[in-house]
């Protein structure tokens, strides 16, 4: 398992977008022929993928807002981004 450099700026891959769905009252990831329905912690990370936040900046933002150890938030965010990268949803 490769580690992700904290300075990497994750971006959604072409044809992928995060959108708020009124009917489900939740954020959804729409990608080519796939829909992902992220849970709340994943949504918090995904909403910070804006082409300017680095992984370090995403983690710093979440640490300010959520009561959880920084190393755990960092590990969770990196794991999610790695998984979505393998699925072609984000580019790192």
């Amino acid at each position: 398992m490769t580690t992700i450099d904290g300075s990497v700026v994750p971006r959604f891959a072409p044809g992928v977008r995060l959108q708020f769905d009124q009917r489900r009252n939740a954020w959804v990831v729409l990608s080519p022929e796939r829909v992902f329905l992220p849970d709340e912690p994943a949504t918090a990370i995904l909403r910070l993928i804006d082409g300017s936040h680095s992984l370090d900046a995403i983690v710093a933002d979440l640490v300010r807002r959520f009561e959880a150890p920084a190393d755990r938030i960092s590990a969770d965010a990196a794991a999610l981004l790695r998984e979505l990268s393998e699925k072609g949803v984000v580019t790192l």
Partner: protein
Amino acid sequence: MMPAPPLGLVAELTHRCPLRCPYCSNPLELVRAGQELDTSTWRRVFDEAAALGVLQLHLSGGEPTVRNDLPALLRHAVGAGLYTNLITSGVLLDREAIGDLAAAGLDHVQLSFQDIDPAEADRIGGYAGGHDKKRAVARWVREAGLALTLNFVVHRQNLERLPEMIAFGADSGAGRIEIAHVQYHGWAFENRSALLPSREQLEIATAEVDAARTRLNGRPVIDYVVPDYYAARPKACMGGWGQRLLIVTPAGKILPCHAAESLPGLVFPRVQDASLEATWQHSDAFNRFRSTEWMREPCRSCDHREEDWGGCRCQAMALAGDAAEADPICGLSPFHERVAAALMESHASAAPFIYRGVTGRKKLPAIAVRANR
């Protein structure tokens, strides 16, 4: 309990198509142009879909680009907040038309390929010059900044060129390649004996896909759909009947799956008469095989019943003669031996393709069937 809202709507805008692929998923009885829904009805259907909770609209066919109102329909769907996916053979598109679709807000193009060898691709698709056009279309789609998936439909007569298909896909700028083994419904069921791969071919192909995935590391992603005649367990067809998708045919019928019209005894509401929401939630057609109450043994007490949902209803109909049976692909089905019999028959066969067409089944001159490698 109300079913969860659907994730996707497959809008079969037309059954017209310049290609005549012998594995087309359209029904044998094709809808004529004069019976197609008009622009304003499709717009209303898209609005109803968005209100029902549909997130993705798959514009399909037939060949959806034969509709002159495609850009207008697309703009309307985008305005309704739907993610739009165009499923096309590409042969009717040019650079300008692709630019128009991109400007209308299209999110993604799925471009089909029949093979990687131009002559073979054109023979399988029944359309001269199609393959070279598709290669140009792949380039134009990327130049227009649109996300692209290449869809290679594979079977006995083209599997040996899988490595070249993957190599082309990797160089094309596509984010995804789908390697989709033919699924045996509709026209493909008619042509089963000419299309089913051998077990050896399948094993080589699966190993090639595994190796390519490791080598390419998600750039592009490779999706691989296996031919379930060789599977030990059935697929959760459509993610479960009435659970994720609905289909609207060119003439307006609302279906839980592409082949559902092959099931006797089901009445499918039409968008001219019923809303998508009422059909999704309350129609007998959508409730008949939803969830697990309809199941018999071996499904009823099976630990996998909420993973595969009993498999494919249309395959149960085609192979076991009863849509409420377990999908005979399953090793636990009392009809499972019919799958093995179909494989045996196919391996002994050099059947010619029956090409798809509106005028009915037409046998074309026999073609040489390649030796399995």
